[in-house]
């Protein structure tokens, strides 16, 4: 059975309208979007004479006048459909703080026109389920957060416990003891998400600062049981990962264009970083470095 419904990976770009502040400051628009061609063109305002604008092509492009519903129907709907069929899907929102990731992913829940990817996905899933005739569905939700290499279960009562990433030979990577809740309708799954969001903001003095440094993953597992022509029950399980990535401005630039970023030459004052310094010296495959990699991957 073909595992690929359409394209396996889609990259989509969305540009937000200028904020009042930006307009008031007389900010120049350096971005041009061609929806038909799926291209974004960047013009460097400080360009040297003769420097050309740079153009990037995506699977789809949404400009400042784009509607939440358009984005959902064209780009997200097919993905949710395939999750309901038993495939896995992941949606990442990537961008610097302030570029509108939260608007795109969450939107304004109360306003049907301004609802984002997440509320629309919930609606989509449960509407599909309510219309189904011969199938039984079970929907579970989990919510976890990754902050400074530690994993937190946002739905757990005991918040002091940090979760571990483990590997199972048959089922691959999993988070040990991650709690999940069965949700029977949109309201219940919304409630679960709100619970997690509340937990997320607890313990940080500056929410914007915090959320710009942590990644959150909301996982919806949809199990579908159907009695086949052979009289047997066939079960399909699809997983949807909704990832809210940390502000990309925090990520260090690797490689670059020959010039080493200044950050990399900073001297670490504390001896607690001695381990990192030593690890960086080892450049061989036939060695073992006793430090863990980033859990995000």
């Amino acid at each position, binding site marked *: 059975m073909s595992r690929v419904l359409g394209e396996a990976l889609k990259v989509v770009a969305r540009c937000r309208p200028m904020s009042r502040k930006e307009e008031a400051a007389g900010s120049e628009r350096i971005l041009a979007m061609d929806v038909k061609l799926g291209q974004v063109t960047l013009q460097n305002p400080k360009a040297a004479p003769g420097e050309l604008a740079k153009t990037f092509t995506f699977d789809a492009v949404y400009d400042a006048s784009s509607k939440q519903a358009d984005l959902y129907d064209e780009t997200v709907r097919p993905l949710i459909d395939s999750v309901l069929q038993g495939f896995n899907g992941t949606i990442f929102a990537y961008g610097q703080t302030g570029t509108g990731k939260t608007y795109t992913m969450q939107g304004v829940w109360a306003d049907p026109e301004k609802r984002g990817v997440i509320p629309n996905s919930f609606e989509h899933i449960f509407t599909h389920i309510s219309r189904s005739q011969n199938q039984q569905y079970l929907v579970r939700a989990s919510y976890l957060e990754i902050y400074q290499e530690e994993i937190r279960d946002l739905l757990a009562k005991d918040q002091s416990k940090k979760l571990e990433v483990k590997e199972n030979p048959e089922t691959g990577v999993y988070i040990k003891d991650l709690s999940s809740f069965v949700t029977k309708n949109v309201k219940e799954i919304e409630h679960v998400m709100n619970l997690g969001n509340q937990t997320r903001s607890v313990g940080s003095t500056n929410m914007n600062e915090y959320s710009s440094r942590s990644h959150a993953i909301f996982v919806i597992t949809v199990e579908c049981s159907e009695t086949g022509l052979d009289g047997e029950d066939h079960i399909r399980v699809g997983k949807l990962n909704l990832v809210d990535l940390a502000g990309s401005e925090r990520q260090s630039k690797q490689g670059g264009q020959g010039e080493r970023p200044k950050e990399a030459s900073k*001297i670490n004052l504390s*001896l607690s970083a001695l381990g990192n310094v030593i690890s*960086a010296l080892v450049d061989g495959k036939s*060695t073992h470095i006793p430090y863990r990699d980033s859990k995000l991957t």
Partner: protein
Amino acid sequence: SESEIELRGKVPNNLGILWSERGEIKTAQTFLESAETLYNQYMKENGNPPLDPNEHFMAEEEKLKDQERSKRFEKAYTHTLYYLAQVYQHLEMIEKAAEYCHTTLKRQLEYSGYYPVEWALNAATLSQYYLTKQCFMESRHCLAAANVIFSQAGQAPSAEDNETEQDQQDLRQRKAEIARCWIKYCLTLLQSARKLLEDNIGELDPDRQSELKAQRKKEEDEKEKGRKKAVLFGTSDLCDSILATEEKVSCLYPLDFQEAREVFLVGQNYVNEAKEFFQFDGYVTDHIEIIQDHSALFKVLAFFEEDYERRCKMHKRRVDMLEPMYVDLNPQYYLLITRQLQFELADTYYEMMDLKVAIGNRLEELDSHTIKKINSLAQLAVKYYELFLDSLRNPDRIFPEKLEDDVLRPAMVAKFHIARLYGKLITSDGKKQLENMQTSLEYYTFLVDYCEKHPEAVQAIETELELSKEMVGLLPTRMERLRAKLSPFT
């Protein structure tokens, strides 16, 4: 003077940091190196601990005791060395950076105070650096020290009495990580020795062996003692414990089977230790890497073993440890590891088959048992090479037109080995033999054709390509001859 030195010591430290933050790493280097020189000069000329800068602002009674002053002074110097290590690292002077890291670790034991687990892990990591430089004496010293210091962690009562389950688990994990560093030590030592001893067909060269043994007798003590003193960790009581650990394994290249076996056994012990924590269910990737190391230990030990039957048994051990893991892995989630295992299993069966053929050649006649064995091993090797090649197919089951760089050579080697294996199958059935030769020819042809279409691939498989071209030339003729023999009436 004493008061001056401390100020003049700390100022370059701070200036060094400031300049590094401004990205002027070379300037930082200058300041820090001057701090270093200052310290060395001062300690040579004076030796009494200088005044701490803050003391200038203190009343007479509040001034520090000599011991405390000394402590702070030494701590500042340790930091100077630590900052220099980072500067050298940024300037890509890796050897110097390592030297300074080493000295920092040394000084932590002597002056600064340290967290045993953290110190042990750092020493174990540094040992891995020394491995990449073939400095086995230094590597062993770091690892032995890591063992000794780590054991201090277990003894001291923890600051918080409620040491959790998590802490215990962390401790066990760290110990297992250090064990894995030891495994790499043993493996690298053996593999480096192999490189020195092998001839151009990968067998142990007895002349080289005698040469190296003679050389070893000569070089010994003096040189070693000098090097050793430079890197020695710790106070006298630590020294003894570290020495005791060091004496359990050699740091010299093993030059014969006995010596190799001793290193192998130490490595195997650490494998068992590491496996206890990194169990398959829970730590798939780590567990498999440990088993792959264990397999590599057997592989390199086999090199030192003269007797073919015993060699074969060692390779059999490899298959026995790799196959069960392979069977349980879901390739959907562990594609890279699955491919590695397929390839290693294929190579191991291939090796075993070659050994059986060599053993068979020494006999007067090949008996049916040996023939069966050879064929079975050949077929198993083919099976795993085919599985590996299958894993490269796209979702529509089509073999890629152009192979990615990272799989190019293994894929070509797999094709080449399959071709050769079909050539090795023993059968009395002429028709079957023709079929085998035909299959062989097809695989050799694949290699030649691919390299014609993709000339950039040639450099990855030069030797194999040459042999393939030869076979593509020879095989059709041989097949004709065989056909003629089988049907003498046409």
